[in-house]
C-alpha cells in the first residue's frame, strides 16, 4: 500500500477516527512520512505535482477543507503574488497569472468581500502589472489590482523580536485586511539563493535597500516572524532555475509543475527548496527563521499531503 492509497482509504474511513483523536497527538504518532488519514484541514503542508496550476490549486485547497477554511464571509483579502519584473509569464519571474486568478475566484467563492492584489515591484510597476498578465487576471476574477508605488501607502511598524529589522514600513492593506494570502513563485535568487514565501515579503514593505544593507537574510527571517501569512501558496509550475530572480531567457525555466500550500511559511519554503533541488538548511533565511521558531523546516516532522495529478 503506498502513501496515496493509504491516504485515499483513510479518507473514506478516517472521518470518525480523525474526530476521535486530537490533532496534536495524532501528528506525533505519525511523525514523518505517513500522512494522517484525518479530516480535511489537518495537514501541515500540501504538495501537488504534475498538473496545471488551476487544477493543482483546486486539489490542494480541498485538502485544507476548501478556501472557506481561510476566508470567512464578508472579509477583505490580500493576495500577494510576485509581480516584481517586467517579463512575460513564460519567463517564470512572476507568479503564474492563472493561479492568481483561481485563488481570487476561490476567495470570492468563500464569500470574500474584496480581494486586493499588489506588489511593490522592482521594475516599473505598471509594466510589471501588465506584462506579467496578473493585472488582467485580477480584473477578470473581479479582484482589485492596487498600485503599490507610493510611500504614502506604507505605514511604519515595530518588528517585535527582530534581531536586525526593528522597524519597517508595511503596505497599509496588509495591516487593514482580514486575510493575507502569500503567493510567491519559486525561483533562483542572486541575493538569497532561492526565493519563495519569506522573500516575497519584500514586496509588501517600502524600503528594501535597508534590508540589503543590514544583513538581508536576518531581515527576511525577522520580518517572517512579524507577519505570518494566513496561507502560503508557492507556485513552482515554471521554475526559474538559473539567473533569477529576473532571468534572462526562457531557457532558464524548468517545468516543475508543482505547487506547495502551507500555513507554515518556513515549511512552505523548505518544501520549495527541496523541489528546487537544494536542502532547506542551506538557505540562510530558512535556517534563521526555523531557529527563531517562526516555523518548521524539518519536513519529516510535518504531516504532508502529497498529491500527484
Amino acid at each position, binding site marked *: 500500500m503506498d502513501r496515496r492509497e493509504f491516504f485515499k482509504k483513510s479518507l473514506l474511513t478516517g472521518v470518525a477516527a480523525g474526530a476521535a483523536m486530537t490533532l496534536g497527538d495524532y501528528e506525533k504518532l505519525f511523525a514523518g512520512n505517513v500522512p494522517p488519514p484525518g479530516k480535511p484541514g489537518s495537514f501541515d503542508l500540501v*504538495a501537488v*505535482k504534475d498538473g496545471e496550476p488551476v487544477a493543482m490549486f483546486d486539489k490542494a485547497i480541498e485538502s485544507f477543507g476548501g478556501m472557506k477554511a481561510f476566508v470567512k464571509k464578508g472579509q477583505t483579502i490580500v493576495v500577494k503574488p510576485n509581480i516584481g519584473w*517586467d517579463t512575460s509569464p513564460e519567463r517564470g519571474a512572476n507568479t503564474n497569472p492563472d493561479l492568481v486568478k483561481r485563488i481570487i475566484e476561490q476567495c470570492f467563492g468563500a464569500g470574500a468581500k*474584496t480581494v486586493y492584489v499588489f506588489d511593490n515591484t*522592482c*521594475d*516599473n510597476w*505598471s*509594466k510589471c502589472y501588465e*506584462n506579467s498578465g496578473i493585472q488582467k487576471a485580477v480584473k477578470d476574477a473581479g479582484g*482589485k*489590482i*492596487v*498600485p503599490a*508605488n*507610493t510611500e*504614502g501607502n506604507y505605514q511604519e511598524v515595530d518588528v517585535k523580536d527582530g534581531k536586525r529589522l526593528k522597524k519597517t514600513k508595511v503596505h497599509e492593506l496588509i495591516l487593514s485586511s482580514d486575510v493575507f494570502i502569500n503567493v510567491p513563485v519559486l525561483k*533562483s*535568487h*542572486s*541575493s*538569497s*539563493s532561492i526565493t519563495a514565501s519569506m522573500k516575497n515579503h519584500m514586496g509588501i514593505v517600502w524600503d*528594501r*535597500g*535597508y534590508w*540589503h*544593507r*543590514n*544583513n*538581508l*537574510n*536576518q531581515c527576511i527571517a525577522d520580518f517572517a516572524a512579524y507577519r505570518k501569512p494566513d496561507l502560503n501558496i508557492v507556485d513552482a509550475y515554471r*521554475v526559474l*532555475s*538559473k*539567473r533569477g*530572480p*529576473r532571468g*534572462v*531567457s526562457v*531557457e*532558464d525555466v*524548468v*517545468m*516543475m*509543475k508543482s505547487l506547495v500550500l502551507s500555513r507554515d511559511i518556513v515549511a512552505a519554503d*523548505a*518544501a520549495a527548496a*527541496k*523541489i*528546487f*533541488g*537544494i536542502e532547506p538548511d*542551506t538557505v*540562510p533565511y530558512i535556517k534563521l527563521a526555523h531557529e527563531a521558531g517562526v516555523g518548521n523546516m524539518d*519536513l519529516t516532522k510535518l504531516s*504532508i499531503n*502529497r498529491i500527484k495529478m
Partner: protein
Amino acid sequence: MQLAFLKKIRVVVSLVFFVFTVFIFIDFAALTGLQMIKTLLYLQFVPSLLNFLKFLSVGAAGFIFILVLTFFFGRVYCSTVCPLGTLQDIVARISKKITNRKRFRFSKPLNGIRYSILGLAVFVLLLHSIFLLSLLDPYSLAGKIFSDLFRPVWYLGNNILSRILQLFDSYALYSVSIKIVSWPSFLFSMAFLGLIIFLVVRKGRWYCNVICPVGTLLGLLSKISFFRIRMDEDACTSCGLCVKECKAECIDIKEKKVDFSRCVACYNCFGACPEKGIGYRLEKIRIPGFGSRKGRKEEEENAKGNEFSRRKFFGTTLIGTTAVLASKTAFADKEKQQGVSEIPVIPPGAGNIWHYTTNCTACHLCVSVCPTKVLQPTFIEFGLSGLFQPKMDYHAEYCNFECVKCTEVCPTGAILPITKEQKSTLQIGVSKFIRNICIVVAKHTACGACSEHCPTKAVEMVPYLGTLTIPKVDEKICVGCGACEYACPTKPDKAIYVEAHSYHRQAMKPKKKVEDKKIITKPTEEFPF
C-alpha cells in the same frame, strides 16, 4: 475690413495646439499616441530645423511650411503653433481680467539686441554648438516650463484625487512620483516663467520681439511677405484703440504704421478698430533698392539700426565664441571622481555625446514621457552649451530594458529612433564594481541587489567567502541600463555604477543558456520530501 473673424480662428487653433502640447508633457499614463506627438510637434520651428539640417528629410520639413506661411501672412507661427506665445497670450488674458492697468502702447524696436541674438545663435550653430538656441528657443523654453512646473502640479492634482478615490476603496487612479530630482532646471523654469509673466503684463510680447531668435528670423521674412497688416490712413481717426490691444506694441499711431516684422499676427487689432481700418493688404514684392521713395526711406532707417546692431553684433559674437569654447572644454577640466561617471550617461539612440549635446534643445519631452523617469535634466554637467540637457540619472531610476520611448519622441533628433531589438544589445555605458564599499565585502552579509536587477545578467554573483557571493561584471554583455547602480543599497556612494561611453557601443547578446552543475533543478518522479 471684415477680418475680425481671423482672431477667433487664431484663438481656437492656438488653444488646440497649446492644450495638446501641454498634455503630451504631463501625460504620465501615455494616453497620447506616438503619431499624435509627432504630428503635433512637426511644425515646431527649431526642432524641425535641427532635424532637417541633419537628414534633409521631408519628415522634418515642418519649419519650411512655417517659412512659407510667414512669407504669405507674417508671423502666424508666433500666435498659433508656438507654445510660449500662447502661454504669454493666456497670461495677458488673465492679467487683463484681474488688473485694470493701462494696456499696451507703441514701443520702438530694439533691433540691435534682436538681430545680435539671432546672428549669434546662427553663428554658434555654425560652430556646432546649440548654445543660445537651447536657451532661447521658445518651444524648448515652454517645454521646460510644462515638464518642470506644470507636470508636478498635474501629478499632485492626480495624486490628491487618487488618494480621495482610495478612501472610497477605488484604485482607478494611481499616484505618480512628484519628487523634483533636478532643482537647477526647476528653478530656472520657475524664474523664466516669473520673468515672462512680468514682461507680458508690462510689455506684452517683449520676449518674442527682442529675445526670441525664431521671432526675429520670422520677423525678417515678414518684412517682405505677400500680405501684411497695414492701417488704412484715410479711415484712421487716431483713436488708438488698436494700439492698446497690440501685444507686440508694434502699431505706431503717430505715423499710422504697423511694424510688421514685430507683429505676431494675433489679429486683436482687427476687431478693436471701430473704423475697420486695419487689416491684411496684398503687397507688391519689393526687392531692396528698387522700391518706392517711401520704401527707400524705410530702408535707410533700418540701415541705421543695423549699423548700430553691427557693432553690438561683433561684441556679442566675441562673448559667444568665448562661451562656446569654454563650454567645450568643460569636460576636460573635471577631475575623475570615484563611483561617478566621467561624463553623464546619454540615452540610447543618442549615438555619441557630441551628436547629443549639439542637437538637444532641452525641451524635456523625453523627461516627460520616460515611464521610469530615469531621464532627468542636468545643470552644467554637459558644459555651458548643454544647460539642462537630460541625462540618465541612475540614482533616480533605471532604464527599462524593453522601452524605447525617448528615442521615438525626440523632436530634434538628438535621440534617434531605435528598435527594442537594437536597444537590447546597445551599450551606452558599462557597470564598474567598487569592491571595497560593497555590502558583501564591508559587512560580510549577503546582498546581490545589483545582480538581481540586471536584465542581461552581466552582473553575476560569484563565490566569495563561505556561502557569501559577490558581484562580478561581464562588460561584454552589459548594456549600461543602470539597474545595478539604482538597486545598489550602499550609502552615500554606490558600490556599482555605470561609466558612460562617449560613443555608444555594441554589446554581445546575453547567453541564452548557462550550465550550472552545482544546482540541478529538474522534474522528479516522486516528491523530493
